[in-house]
């Protein structure tokens, strides 16, 4: 691992303890619900008990009679200011509050503003709403039926189709499929799930009527983009962009769920502007699960073609995407299905075609990138499951089949069948390492013996390729804003620094890792580099933190801004040492004269000189800014192996071991990288075995609380075993790739493959996640392995 600075400086490769922890471990974190402003009011929201209904009447009189209830805001009120609709990040439209129809269970119906949180809740209970329920569309497969209601006539639509997207060569793929020795097919569903960060969403909207300035404290992963969106949405009521300050305080987990703009934020802003006082809105967990953006929800028909030896020849996938009543995904605008076209995976073949249709249903809107850079989880699940299905079909060990199909190390940079340029990789090494750690061959022998005895044990592999770091400006924008990111560094006269970036940590440890990047480049101890993010009045513009983009974009910006400063330092050192710049060499934290190492100037001396004794004609001070536009995306990869034991009577599944070998390029802080991987693995376990948002046929969400939405505890979550290979990213200034999401992407197919493997001798080829004991039991019953009583 790359590490060439001493511990006092803690540049790259040091497992430096996190700087931000001091406040979190002492209860001094500053989250949005901790904010209390003078005169602050509280907002609470009345929500729809129906998935699809006309609003006949909203009677707020009983609520307004409660002392302390100041206002009840309805869609009709917002309509007067043309604030009842807002754009989504996908350029669709979404209601802030409905004027006549509710489109999904738990949709906002009206808002109560009160002097206290408890009174606002009483207000909610006292509002009486008369609905005329209608038959909702719950199953996306039925959304295009001729007799299905048209959900978005407001958009002039005549059906419920949102968009069609395709990539690849349809004809070539059809041809290869038609002539292949083997074509395996599966219907694979990736369920609707929720990020369920432990902190829900919320805000304090504080409008100062005197200054005409709005300060918006909110749980957002992308404060700058939010400022611009607010300016675009509310510009017509006088909120111009210089009068808007968005502050993202400490965030209690984001994972993609805190990228979108939710109606609650906008209503709180409207209320604060109208009333002239700060308004706090903190959603409940149930509101969070039921109404905030979901993730996944892809119905995929997958086909994989191969020759009789199992050499993959072509992939074809047709997907139906359920977006709820509006497309509120948060993808780059040219990529309605995100980076789904990474679906060809880690394998070498040149024919593929994938198409997708997105439809409206009466469900909560969304399609956020939940700890996965834009639909990569769906893609990886599809290919990694299909490769196992193929292995079963040709009767080869899934590890061997992967080894035979992997893109080889010397093929990089590699152009994938669907057009991506994979920059680097060594897939064989990662899988080999994982197999060695877990003792793959011995496990296969054990499995064979257990099968003899009728016991169920399975081994599952996933060898994924991720695609992160959006992204190069020629392709990537959100609402037109290019997906660069930024860093501004100021070094103070005594050699201590502050750096501000356009991203926003939600637990990833930016205050530490960015400091380490700058420490690496400048030799200033990371301990003395303060990192600030999340305040749009001070930080440079950036698109925020999601899709593992912080290190690839803002991290690169930090390195390059620091390098600009090092160039300046060289000039100052040359001046101070009275030599020419070419005679100087850099070493960790100083410039010295080649051949005369005792003639040196440390970074601290140089910085001091930049304020006190800088060369004539040079700008004083020591500051630099960089906006980084990545030349390509980065392609982290890894191989995971999971071992499960299944109770053959109850179908209960126990994960015995799970080994994860990740390659995220050069590592800034190994402790933090490992922590990110552990966390992502548990978030990959969750949909594999536990989590799914479930609707009944009337569109009611059946498990919209943490009682029934089964977030894994420390008991379900196994003891993760992690290791790594390091293949530096060739085009990133520090060779890093981004890591937080690989495990969320790679774990579900490893687990699903292990469970299917345990049952494969019974002829089972696929089970949709989450794979619950009941699902396993159903199969065992079908196969006559258990009797019903």
């Amino acid at each position, binding site marked *: 691992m790359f590490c060439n600075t001493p511990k006092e400086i803690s540049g790259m490769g040091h497992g430096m303890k996190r700087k931000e922890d001091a406040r979190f471990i002492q209860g001094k974190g500053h989250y949005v619900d901790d904010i209390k402003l003078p005169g602050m009011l509280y907002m609470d929201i009345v929500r729809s008990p129906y998935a699809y209904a006309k609003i006949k009447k909203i009677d707020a009189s009983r609520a307004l009679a409660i002392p302390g209830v100041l206002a009840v805001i309805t869609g009709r009120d917002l309509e007067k200011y043309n604030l009842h609709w807002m754009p989504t990040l996908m350029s669709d439209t979404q209601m802030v509050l409905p004027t006549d129809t509710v489109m999904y269970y738990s949709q906002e119906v009206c808002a109560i503003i009160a002097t206290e949180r408890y009174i606002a809740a009483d207000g909610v209970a006292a509002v009486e709403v008369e609905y005329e329920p209608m038959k909702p569309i719950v199953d996306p497969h039925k959304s295009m039926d001729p007799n299905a209601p048209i959900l978005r006539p407001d958009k002039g639509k005549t059906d419920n189709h949102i968009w069609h997207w395709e990539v690849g060569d349809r004809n070539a793929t059809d041809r290869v499929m038609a002539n292949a020795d083997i074509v395996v097919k599966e219907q694979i569903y990736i369920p609707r799930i929720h990020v369920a960060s432990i902190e829900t969403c919320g805000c304090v909207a504080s409008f100062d009527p005197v200054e005409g300035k709005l300060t918006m404290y909110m749980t957002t992963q992308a404060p700058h983009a939010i400022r611009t969106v607010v300016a675009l949405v509310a510009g017509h009521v006088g909120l111009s962009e210089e009068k808007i300050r968005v502050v993202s305080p400490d965030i209690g987990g984001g994972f993609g769920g805190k990228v979108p703009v939710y109606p609650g934020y906008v209503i709180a802003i409207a209320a604060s502007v109208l009333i002239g006082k700060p308004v706090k809105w903190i959603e409940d967990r149930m509101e969070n699960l039921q109404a905030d953006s979901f993730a996944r929800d892809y119905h995929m028909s997958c086909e994989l073609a191969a020759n009789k030896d199992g050499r993959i020849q072509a992939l074809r996938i047709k997907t139906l995407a359920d977006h709820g009543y509006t497309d509120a995904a948060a993808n780059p605008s040219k990529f309605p299905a995100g980076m789904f076209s990474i679906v060809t995976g880690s394998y070498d073949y040149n024919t593929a075609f994938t198409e997708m249709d997105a439809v409206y249903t009466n469900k909560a809107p969304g399609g956020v990138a939940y700890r996965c850079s834009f639909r990569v989880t769906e893609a990886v699940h599809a290919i990694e499951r299909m490769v196992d299905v193929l292995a079963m079909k040709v009767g080869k060990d899934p590890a061997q089949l992967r080894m035979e199909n992997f893109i080889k190390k010397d093929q990089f940079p590699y152009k994938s069948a669907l057009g991506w340029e994979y920059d680097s990789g060594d897939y064989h090494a990662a899988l080999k390492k994982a197999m060695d750690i877990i003792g793959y061959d011995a496990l296969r022998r054990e499995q064979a013996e257990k099968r003899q005895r009728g016991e169920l044990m399975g081994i599952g592999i996933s060898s994924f390729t991720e695609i992160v770091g959006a992204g190069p400006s020629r392709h990537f924008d959100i609402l037109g804003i290019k997906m660069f990111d930024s860093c501004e560094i100021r070094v103070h006269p005594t050699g201590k620094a502050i750096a501000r970036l356009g991203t926003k940590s939600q637990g990833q440890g930016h205050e530490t890792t960015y400091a380490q990047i700058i420490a690496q480049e400048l030799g200033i101890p990371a301990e003395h580099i303060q990192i600030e993010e999340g305040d749009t009045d001070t930080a440079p513009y950036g698109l925020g933190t999601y899709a593992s983009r912080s290190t690839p974009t803002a991290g690169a910006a930090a390195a390059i801004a620091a390098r600009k400063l090092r160039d300046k330092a060289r000039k100052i050192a040359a001046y101070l040492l009275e030599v020419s710049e070419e005679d100087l060499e850099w070493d960790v934290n100083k410039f010295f004269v080649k051949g005369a190492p005792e003639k040196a100037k440390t970074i601290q001396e140089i910085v001091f000189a930049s304020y006190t004794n800088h060369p004539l004609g040079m700008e004083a001070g020591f500051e630099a800014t960089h906006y980084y536009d990545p030349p390509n995306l980065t392609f982290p990869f890894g191989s995971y192996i999971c071992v499960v034991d299944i109770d053959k009577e109850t179908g209960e599944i126990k994960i015995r071991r799970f080994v994860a070998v990740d390659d995220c390029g050069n590592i800034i802080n190994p402790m933090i990288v490992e922590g990110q991987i552990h966390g992502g693995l548990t978030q990959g376990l969750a949909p594999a075995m*536990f989590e799914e948002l479930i609707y009944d046929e009337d569109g009611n969400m059946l498990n919209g609380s943490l009682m029934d939405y*089964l977030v*894994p505890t420390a008991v*379900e979550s196994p003891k993760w075993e992690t290791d790594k290979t390091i293949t530096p990213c060739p085009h990133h200034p520090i060779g890093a790739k981004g890591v937080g999401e690989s495990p969320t992407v790679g774990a579900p197919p490893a687990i699903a493959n292990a469970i299917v493997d345990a049952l494969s001798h019974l002829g089972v080829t696929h089970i949709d996640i989450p794979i619950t004991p009941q699902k396993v039991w159903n199969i065992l019953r079908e196969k006559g392995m258990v009797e019903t*009583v």
Partner: protein
Amino acid sequence: MIPQAFDYESPATVGEAIALLQRYGSDAKILSGGHSLIPMMKLRLATPERIIDISGIKGLDYIREEDGFLKIGALAKESALEESALIARKYPLLLDAAKMIADPSVRNRATVGGNLAHGDAANDHPAVMLAYRAEIIATGPRGQRTIPIDEFFLGFFMTALEPDEILTEIRIPIPPAGSGGAYKKMERKVGDYATAATAVQLTVDGNGVCRHIGIGLTNVSAAPMRAQRSEDALRDQRLSDELIKQAAVMAGQDCDPNPDLRGSIEYKRSVVKTLTERAIKTAIERAMNA
């Protein structure tokens, strides 16, 4: 999620609490550990006008053997069961169950009395007490009465407690020598209410013949239920694997589960069968080693 406003009383004695119950009638609700009631109040599924908080009543949290019974005060907490040396030594069924209820912080508040008085077939203690053939002591304006556990659970969230009565004690007959018990619970994840669970308490004599047997089932019927036929099949019989299996199948057949997020009817019946079989076997093992 905020409860609707209510008035609050915190009586210091059982007598005071009963007087308050009499005064306020159906407007009032007893609060014990609060871990069933407060969640319901936060969701406004329960909106009592007056809360009578009995958790401050002193001396009602005992766990002791006396007069041939294990006596558990209504206010004894789940964590106290878990940490009691007496329970660990002699009441494995109770210990198994206590460890599987909710999570440690909930167990620090939740009371055994509340768990039973709630009358919820999803709770774990009802099946346990059915297996133990426990008695419930109810105290009211007319004094104390003893309710055999078989007469306590009347229906869906319905118990034999009168509106002005308080559950004050649970009595479990001290198991004779050669006794053992076990609780086997399947849950979707730790801390969850049971998908299904079986409580077994039995006594085996020197010849391997089953002398006492109690089997209770959790969350597979509207009211907590005893697996009567299974008990009858085992009682006074020499316990063979085959017989145990038959008894377990009966439990699966006799329960009456609802299909829900925890599983289908067939699945739950099958789980009941498996858990019952396993619980009986563990109980026998423990009885032998006791």
